[in-house]
């Protein structure tokens, strides 16, 4: 079965069923809709920060997609809820680097924890976007929420759409 188990690690198959964070978030500070043009799958992710605006208080998402995309959103939720905004940014960068590695190198387990299970996805160019979908949405929410918090402490949710990646850029 070649190295298919490198792609579909137990943790991924497991998260794809548990779907932590599945469901719309009430009163998000920001929410973002992201679409994977290859398959048409979509996700809408909502983010709420704590009162100080420096910590992720809650994440919720609604969407439909392949096991990789669902597991990724689930793992993301587990990882970022309760984390500092600055740390979440590191997580996003680390996750993206891992997914762009095309299977090379060793992922940073200290930073990414369980999410290193997604390292195997980086070898499958057509699936990288699946794993990144929720992370791109999270990044957009973070930018919007922080901008809004800076502009006027606690504004209504801004809905943004991140600008398109380059064609050869999967995420």
């Amino acid at each position, binding site marked *: *079965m*070649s*190295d*298919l188990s490198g*792609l*579909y690690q137990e943790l991924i*198959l497991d998260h794809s*069923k548990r779907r932590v964070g599945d469901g719309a978030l009430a009163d998000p500070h920001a929410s973002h809709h992201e679409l994977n043009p*290859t*398959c*048409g*799958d979509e996700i809408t992710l909502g983010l709420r920060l704590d009162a100080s605006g420096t910590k992720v208080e809650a994440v919720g998402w609604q969407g*439909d*997609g*392949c*096991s*990789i995309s669902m597991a990724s959103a689930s793992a993301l939720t587990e990882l970022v809820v309760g984390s500092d905004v600055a740390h979440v940014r590191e997580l996003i960068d680390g996750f993206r680097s891992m997914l762009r590695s095309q299977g090379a190198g060793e992922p940073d387990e200290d930073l990414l924890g369980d999410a290193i299970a997604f390292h195997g996805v980086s070898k*499958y160019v057509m*699936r990288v976007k*699946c794993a990144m979908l929720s992370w791109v949405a999270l990044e957009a929410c973070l930018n919007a929420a922080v901008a809004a918090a800076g502009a006027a402490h606690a504004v209504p949710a801004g809905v943004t759409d991140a600008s398109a990646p380059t064609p050869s850029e999967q995420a």
Partner: protein
Amino acid sequence: MTFESMTTSQPLDLASIRRDFPYLAQELNGFPLAYLDSGATAQRPVQVLDAERAFLEHANAAVHRGASTLVGTSTTAFEDARATVARFVGAGEREIVWAENATDAINIVALGMADAAAGLGGAEADVFRLGPGDEIVVTEAEHHANLIPWQRLAAKTGATLRWIPVDDDGTWNIDHAASVIGEKTRLVAFAHVSNVTGHVAPVTDVVELAHRHAALVVLDACQSVPHRPTDFAALGVDFAAFSAHKMLGPNGIGVLYGRAHLLDALPPARTGGSTITTVTMEAAEFLPSPQRFEAGTQPVSQAVGLAEAVRYLERLDMHRVHEHEVELAALMVDEVSRIPGVRLVGSGAGVERGALASVDVPGVHAHDVGQFLDSRGIAVRVGHHCAQPLHRRLGLRATTRASAYVYTTADEVRRFTAALGEVRAFFGVTGASA
């Protein structure tokens, strides 16, 4: 109906055919490659690759421009290619227009009609002028290539887009068509063979119905011309479109067929060199078909390659190609129907279909199904296959499609269905199924 019982003539010599395709001799993930995505794009035999290369090394030059010996050689090869393709589909030479692909071919008609409605093309373009109150009819099962151009034409002209509905299995018949086509209908566009269900449309019946209301008929022949003997004149359609890359030919070239008097009257949407008689700073006059549509430097080596692909298919004999695919289609339907928890889109056994099978595995996303097959060396297509409305109508977002061609073996089909049978277990999906 069993696989063996359908053979009526000398079958294709698969072993000999496969030797012509270097691509197919490859491995995929440690298995011999089973290429089951010919419905998206077919592979090319060495004969086609060699013909294009020989042309480029010895005969390549501008065509229909200047008068040198070299231009004579290239122009002759280019126009001979047109004559070859014309003969293959029952058309006159002037009825074959080179386009970039089938999508472009359909757009040439839709954009030309929009130009006519915008006032271009003079009185002879009257037949193409639409406006409010007029209706354009498609089906709910169309490929986006045969849907969006008509949506845009409707938006630009004020005409209304209507559609022939499909049944729960994604197919339709002449009764569905008759419920929509009527006296307001000015154009009917539909696929000869569906790229999702494999459904074969009742072309001549629809043509008769449409022509009774003086409506034009546009046939999307992408999944028919490569797979079965096709004669546009006999079918009676006004326009038709197909792509070279799905019939062993090069990318970068498609074909628009049109009845000569219609093509001569259709305004050319894309304009430029080689299409004109007289040009002043203010205006241009256009040549008749096909040149009026072939703006700029043509896909010359690609036309030569396509002609070689046609000759290859003619040597195989399109009747035998068709029989081969009828057998594979029956095998697909038969085998897929036996797999628990797998839903086959389209008609079941006993109904003719193109040699393709789109399946849904409830509980497993199509991209995961495809990934699993891929790991077994089986290349299939996953997604909505450019037919989102049809998938939505079927309650699906994406399916997994296997599609066959002249080089596809029954063994490859069986590898596909065997692996498909393992998908649910791999992804831990159990229980009752569709």
